[in-house]
């Protein structure tokens, strides 16, 4: 009995290695955070709109169309980095992009958008971060894909850079009507 036990370390070892191999081979981003909101209705909110004088009412915005919700701020450097990619996404047919301007200065945001271009069809002002709390925002920038039924299908934490753009884009296309 005792002698058979000697082979035990190698069995445990190979088991652990198998797990490591599996995790390395599958397409996986260790920094990715799942959201409890996935497959749930997008949280409702009302806020000031940055672009026009009307109130921003989420139920009006999230209807009939796939929506990309992008939390951003002018103080956030990675947001500037991902901005060209957000603009590229805005050229996609059949979707619209909603910006949530998180804890920011409206004047500065308008200047920022004039300088870099505006990919957003509407922007909600989240001056005290309440919308961010409701959506479980972890850190800026953060981007959600909401389908035409208003269900959150995908969440990306961090900037949408060259590296992750294609992956993100495929998620958008998959959820387009």
């Amino acid at each position, binding site marked *: 009995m005792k002698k058979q036990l000697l082979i035990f370390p*190698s069995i445990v070892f190979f088991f652990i290695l198998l797990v490591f191999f599996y995790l390395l081979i599958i397409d996986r981003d260790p920094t990715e*955070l799942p959201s409890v909101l996935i497959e749930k209705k997008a949280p409702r909110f009302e806020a000031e709109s940055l672009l026009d004088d009307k109130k921003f009412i989420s139920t009006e915005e999230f209807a009939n169309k796939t929506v990309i919700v992008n939390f951003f701020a002018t103080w956030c450097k990675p947001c500037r980095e991902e901005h060209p990619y957000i603009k590229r996404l805005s050229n996609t047919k059949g979707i619209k992009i909603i910006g949530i301007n998180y804890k920011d200065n409206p004047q500065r945001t308008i200047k920022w958008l004039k300088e870099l271009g505006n990919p957003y069809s509407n922007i909600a002002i989240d001056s005290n971060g309440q919308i961010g709390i409701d959506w479980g925002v972890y850190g800026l920038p953060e981007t959600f894909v909401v389908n035409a039924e208003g269900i959150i299908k995908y969440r990306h934490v961090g900037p949408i850079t060259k590296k992750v753009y294609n992956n993100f884009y495929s998620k958008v296309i998959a959820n387009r009507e």
Partner: protein
Amino acid sequence: MSASVGNFSLWLSLCFAIFQFLISRKKNNRSVLKFNKIAVNGLLLCVLVSFFSLMYSHVISDFSVVNVFQNSHTTKPLLYKISGVWGNHEGSMLLWILVLTIFNYFIYKLYNQKNFTFISKSLEIQAIITIGFLLFTIFTSNPFERMIPAQVNGLGFNPLLQDPALAIHPPLLYIGYVGFSAAFSFSIAAMSINTEEKISWYSYIKPFVLTAWTFLSAGIAFGSIWAYYELGWGGWWFWDPVENASFMPWLLGTALVHSLIAVEKKKSLQSWVLLLSILAFLLSVIGTFLVRSGILTSVHTFALDPARGIYILVFITLLGGYSLILFGIKSKNFLNKHYFSFFSREGSILVNNVLMITVCASVFLGTIYPLLVEAFSNNKISVGEPYFNSTTIPIMIPAILVMGIGPILSWNRGDATKIFGKSFPSILLTTVISIIFFCVYRPYNMLGLVGIILAFWIISNILLTLVPQLILKNKKFIQDNIPKYSNGMIIAHLGIGLLILGITGSSIWQKEKITRMKVNDKTEIHNYNIIFKEINKITGQNYLALQGNFWVYNKKKNIIAELKPENRFYPVANNSTTEVSIHTNLLRDLYIVLGEGDINEGWVVRIYYNPLVIWIWIGAFMIFLGGLFSIKSNLKFIKRLTL
């Protein structure tokens, strides 16, 4: 130019390593000795040349080298240009290989008439390890990669790494990790060669394990010091995966150092030592894998590159598969029916071994548990401090109790009733000191009290072993009747006692205050009044900083310290760091961090009162010192072996 030289000699060292592998397999004594001399020396020389050419490229800021461009800048101070060599993934692999070849050289030096097959086999295994790491470095992380055109200046560096403690932290750690490779090779060799050849392989392993363990202890300590002074979070240990990756081999090393004593004295526990030697090195490499593959996220993660991960993993599979299967087949030859009493010195060593392995296993489980969960359920979870504290502390408590009593037990025979008699003085002393401590500080905290008692338990046991040697003048009587203890053991165990004191004090009775302060605001923490006197702009060599000036008063309204924490901005790296300011004495640290803020709103100031922190560093230093003493006495032994 220097980069080309470095690259060339890296390739050349690969040739030498392959040469060493092929030669060590030959059976002809004389030619093996002659050619191995060429192989081992050539390997060492080439790796040295590679290493110093990379260092030269960093020092002269040769931005045609990608590695220098990505990790350096002309404004970086010279010391950090040098330490910058191993402050990145590629360079640190080169340092790893350098340490590996140095150990390789020392193994070669052990050749004599009697141990030819054993050392040759060890050198063969060592060559395999070296080849593996050289291939990895050359093909997936070559530090000499060039870029055209050369850049005018580098991208900068991580300002957090600009710290003297961090400059020596990796080399010390690597001596530790890589030192275990020698133990690994020796134990493979011991299992592979004919067991008829009576070779005391454990005596070969011991000095290497001691060296690895001693330097690993120092490396971990410097890492903690860096975390404490540089990160500004008020703590010195965070159960980060990378910290765990260094802590696990340390635990196995601790078990190994002690069971090697039992093997030497009693020839028992041999297969156990073989297994520990294999696991200690495998865990060191798995630690590297976890850090470098990006499979886990950690504050230390260098580079997210799955190709590197796959490479190391394949390497680990071969290395671990071969060694563990060999162990499964061969180690039964090392089992013996030599059972011993629970209440003997070797019994206490075995108990402590088992406890160390248990701690190691629970740390390992906690580190990879998020990965297991993700592999099987696709959920992400995070395992943190509460898990590690609640699993390791309860196992550590009996381990420390046994550690106190172990050295005073005698080998072989055990008598439970005598133990009580023997340990009675130290129980008494511990009780007295603990009561005094309690009366002075009134620490109403169970865990804190347990920690303090354990610390004094170790300290009083050690002090009491010294007493007979100090009082009794009769040398003859001492030699015959009093057990002799090595200086290394006494110093290192005392160090552990002080370490526990420091750990307990700083983790149980830490006080934290986070407040927003404007100039001339006052605050207080544990009997100290702190006034924010002024704030100044200062300019460093490659940074700009805001420096706060805090005056600390005690209860008698005497000023005891002026603390000047800084909030630094490094323009090149576009990165801010906080420089902590600390006032230390033997009883406590006062620790101030200057956070974000401005002149109108005030600044966020974090103040910590950290009791007994200095004893952690003193304890760690004594452990290191004790280790050095033990290495010294074991080197004498190995010299005798090579004669």
